[in-house]
């Protein structure tokens, strides 16, 4: 196919950009951030080309596949491609990467060092895009690991507060998770003799014995659950978010967390269907505990970033609930929730980063109470993102959660009654989410007349944030734009599980 260079180029462009930043001399300090914007724009352009080439009618099958034998000793091939499940995440990654680059032009976090900052962001981009495109288990694992070092550097050197400790917690937790995941992958590879994700999903994995499937599934899910993060493995997340610089938080919440849930849909569900059917109810239970816990914990926080971090635990709970239904609606909901959460939480962290830049803190105690009056546009964006996050119909956040609940009403797994109980609890979680975001808005926005005015949203901030605002509205009004891409691919996944259902 003529377009076969597109996906490799999507990886090579940021990689070369990162290398260029490594090799560039001190003089590059001045233009490094512009260089970042250039590279990310090129990446975004390539992504648009991928979207144009992508055949929506065949989104259930892998497209633009590039294959190259790489390490025969480990059965590893360099094999990448996109389908309806991965394409939206690739687009989200490119978009958030671009927004982050634009934001960084005038706002590299303390202590500057633009070259290293941009280089790390570009390396991060390689790992994130690669994870969503990889079609080989070990390759997936490698890309999964590529993001760790850059994110650790971003938190440890450009973060604030207890940044070094938070960065170490982040990397040690997630490495432990990914090593456990690797053990699961190795079980699959040893049992089936293949690391080809497509072949494994198309029935090769299902040939494994149920006990081997169960071992592999528990290990892989355990590893992915740390990244997602699923309650009770989420404890690294709030610290990492609080300490990370703004763009670090945006990419962490917007993209990195999705790597966990993406891995479940892409690998665990179709490859290990028998195990998935038995594990699903437990996954659902953890998901709902996460929803309630996230909501209650958010309510108790005294720091804006921590509120959003815990709200992420809740939102990812809905995504997990959707996956655990193993139904077309539920998994569609999960994929939709992934994208919606990426856009909304990305915007939230941008806005909160903006507040932090203006006031020097994100702790409620230090914040002026009158954001609506002192910086009305910033206040509006915070309100908009918060309302989107709590699942207001008409905005993107609604559909992921609503469809997850619909999925839980008609789960494909036999434990229907159990799922309906969970459904009620999860719905309560939605209500609680409203409570904590309203508390935030009241606390930060609606105080008495301002003591001092804050700088309102600047042009570069508008430029960086507008795409997110627009997409939140568009996907809220027209969810089918995304669902029609994911639907055929989800059907393929669900069909592979259907055979395992009693």
């Amino acid at each position, binding site marked *: 196919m003529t377009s076969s260079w597109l996906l490799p180029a999507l990886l090579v462009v940021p990689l070369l950009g990162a290398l260029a930043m*490594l090799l560039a001399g001190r003089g590059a300090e001045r233009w490094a951030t512009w260089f970042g914007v250039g590279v990310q724009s090129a990446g975004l352009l390539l992504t648009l080309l991928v979207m144009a080439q992508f055949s929506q009618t065949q989104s259930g099958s892998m497209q633009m596949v590039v294959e190259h034998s*790489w*390490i*025969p*000793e*480990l059965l590893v091939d360099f094999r990448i491609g996109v389908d309806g499940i991965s394409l939206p995440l690739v687009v989200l990654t490119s978009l958030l990467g671009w927004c982050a680059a634009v934001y960084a032009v005038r706002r590299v976090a303390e*202590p500057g060092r633009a070259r*290293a900052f941009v280089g790390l962001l570009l*390396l991060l981009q390689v*790992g994130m895009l690669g994870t969503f495109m990889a079609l080989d288990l*070990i390759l997936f*694992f*490698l890309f999964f*690991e*590529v993001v*760790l*070092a850059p994110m*650790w*550097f971003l938190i*440890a*050197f450009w973060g604030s507060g207890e940044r*070094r400790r938070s960065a*170490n917690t982040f*990397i*040690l937790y997630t*490495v*432990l998770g990914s*090593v*456990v995941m*690797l*053990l699961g992958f*190795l*079980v699959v*590879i*040893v049992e089936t003799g293949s690391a080809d994700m497509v072949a494994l999903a198309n029935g090769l994995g299902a040939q494994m014995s149920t006990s081997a499937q169960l071992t592999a599934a528990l290990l892989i899910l355990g590893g992915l659950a740390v990244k997602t993060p699923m309650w009770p493995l989420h404890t690294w997340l709030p610290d990492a978010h609080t300490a990370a610089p703004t763009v670090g938080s945006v990419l962490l919440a917007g993209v990195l967390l999705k790597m966990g849930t993406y891995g479940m849909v892409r690998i665990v569900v179709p490859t290990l269907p028998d195990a998935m059917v038995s594990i699903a109810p437990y996954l659902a239970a953890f998901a709902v505990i996460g929803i309630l816990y996230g909501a209650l914990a958010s309510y108790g926080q005294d720091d804006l970033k921590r509120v959003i971090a815990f709200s992420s635990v809740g939102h990812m709970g809905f995504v997990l609930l959707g996956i655990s239904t193993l139904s077309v609606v539920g998994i569609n909901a999960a994929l939709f929730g992934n994208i919606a959460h990426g856009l909304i939480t990305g915007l939230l962290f941008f806005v909160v980063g903006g507040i932090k830049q203006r006031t020097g803190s994100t702790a409620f105690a230090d914040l002026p109470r009158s954001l609506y009056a002192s910086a009305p546009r910033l206040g509006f964006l915070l309100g908009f993102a918060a309302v989107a996050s709590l699942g207001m119909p008409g905005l993107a956040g609604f559909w992921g959660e609503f469809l997850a609940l619909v999925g839980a009403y008609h789960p494909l797994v036999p434990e229907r009654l159990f799922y309906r109980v969970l459904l009620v609890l999860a719905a309560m979680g939605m209500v609680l989410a409203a409570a904590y975001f309203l508390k935030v808005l009241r606390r930060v926005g609606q105080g008495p007349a301002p003591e001092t005015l804050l700088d309102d949203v600047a042009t570069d901030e508008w430029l960086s944030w507008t795409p997110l605002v627009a997409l939140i509205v568009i996907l809220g009004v027209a969810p089918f734009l995304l669902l029609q891409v994911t639907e055929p691919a989800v059907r393929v996944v669900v069909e592979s599980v259907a055979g395992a259902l009693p």
Partner: protein
Amino acid sequence: MTIQSIDLLTLSPTLVVAVGALLALVAELVTGRGQVALGVGLTALVVATPLAVLASGEQTLCNGADAACAYVVSPLAVALQLIVLVSTAVVLLMASGDVSDGTIPGGEFVFLILCSASGAVLVPATTDLVTLIVALEVVSLPTFALVALRRGEPRAAEAALKAFIFSIVSVAVSLYGISLLYGTTGVVSFEQLAAAATLTDPTPLGTAGLVMVLAVIGFKIAAVPFHAWAPDTYQGATAPVAAYLSVVSKTAGFAALLLVTWTFAGWSEVWAPVVGVLAGLTMLIGNAVALKQRHAVRLLAWSSIAQAGYILVPLGAVTSSVVWGPEVTDAVIGYLVAYAAMNLGAFAVVSVVARRDGAESLADYRGLAWRSPWLAVSLAFFLASLAGLPPGLIGLLVKVRVLVVPVDAGLWWLAVVMAVATVIGLAYYLVWAALLFARSETADDEGLTHRLAVRSWTSTVAVAVCVALTVAFSLAPSLALGLVDRL
């Protein structure tokens, strides 16, 4: 008995290195310049490397009657010899700075290193237990002198003595073990022992003998609980010598372990659990103690102990379902190749920084990225490789390759221990990497004697070679993981 035929070409890698040792000594005596000795030594190694590849599959020193040969070069042996030869060459490059400023005498240094290396080249080609132990001692004896060779460092003598005593004890034990094995089977050659081991079940006496032989190997590779000499010895020696001990001497030890385990493959139920437990202890204790280290070379010493634990894992996972064979040996060789490149690289940077800045403790590395960005980036890359974190891809891939074996064997405890050990290991490599890029708080700074020593570009070449190798392995991991198949 007929006269043994001697094929000099097959023996040439060992011979060239040994002759190079003598020539280096003479060269320094004649010219009075240590650098000339280094040049001679490097030449010998460079010549020996292609000869080793050519000799692949050959055998010599054969006894005509039953065609039993005393020197057999299997592809596995060539792979190990290549690691030894290239690593020794890198060590020589690394040492050029110390030689040119007189910290170590050039002629003696090259002589001793090459003597030891000739033993290390010999080890994988031996075919009986006695020659094996002799070859291992050829590796070890010069290293004690090498450790003590550091001028004006009182700790060096103590360090050498410590290694010497440990070595003597372990050799004595293993000789006793060999006598027990000989007593039970009546033979010492690997092939005959292997035949005996497949025919008979392990006897208590034979078991004791085998475990004792493992002790000397445990000492060579500094596996816990035979590791106690390593940290003090590494710290007392100069960085190049420590690098040599941690890579070449260890490779010789693993070569011996591969030979012994191949020989007694029929008794794997005896040695595999022992090696497995050694692996587990070595990984956990090596990594856990490394967490507390604040001295650069000492930290690398503990890290190299831990790394040896990873390399033991495939052999420890030999069971009824996973037999001694390419699945196991390719994992061991692949890890050894990658380990040689990344560990030598870390030592090479430490050596340059120690000479230039007088840096010893980790705190001295604070802000290295501002003083010498390339050295800092290189060191961070090697540390990432050792930790198994991208961009050090090869370090990660060989860990994956090693981990395949216990998973395949269903040996879950070993796989889990390795997983946990890797995570612990990450912590201390990160601490060091973080220091490199931290802004130095004390601006240009007490304790650091800047650029006192002569700058030596050859030491920097050593770093560059290791970077090139590690990057090449990361891009084309088959070079390391499939090395044996190519020979």
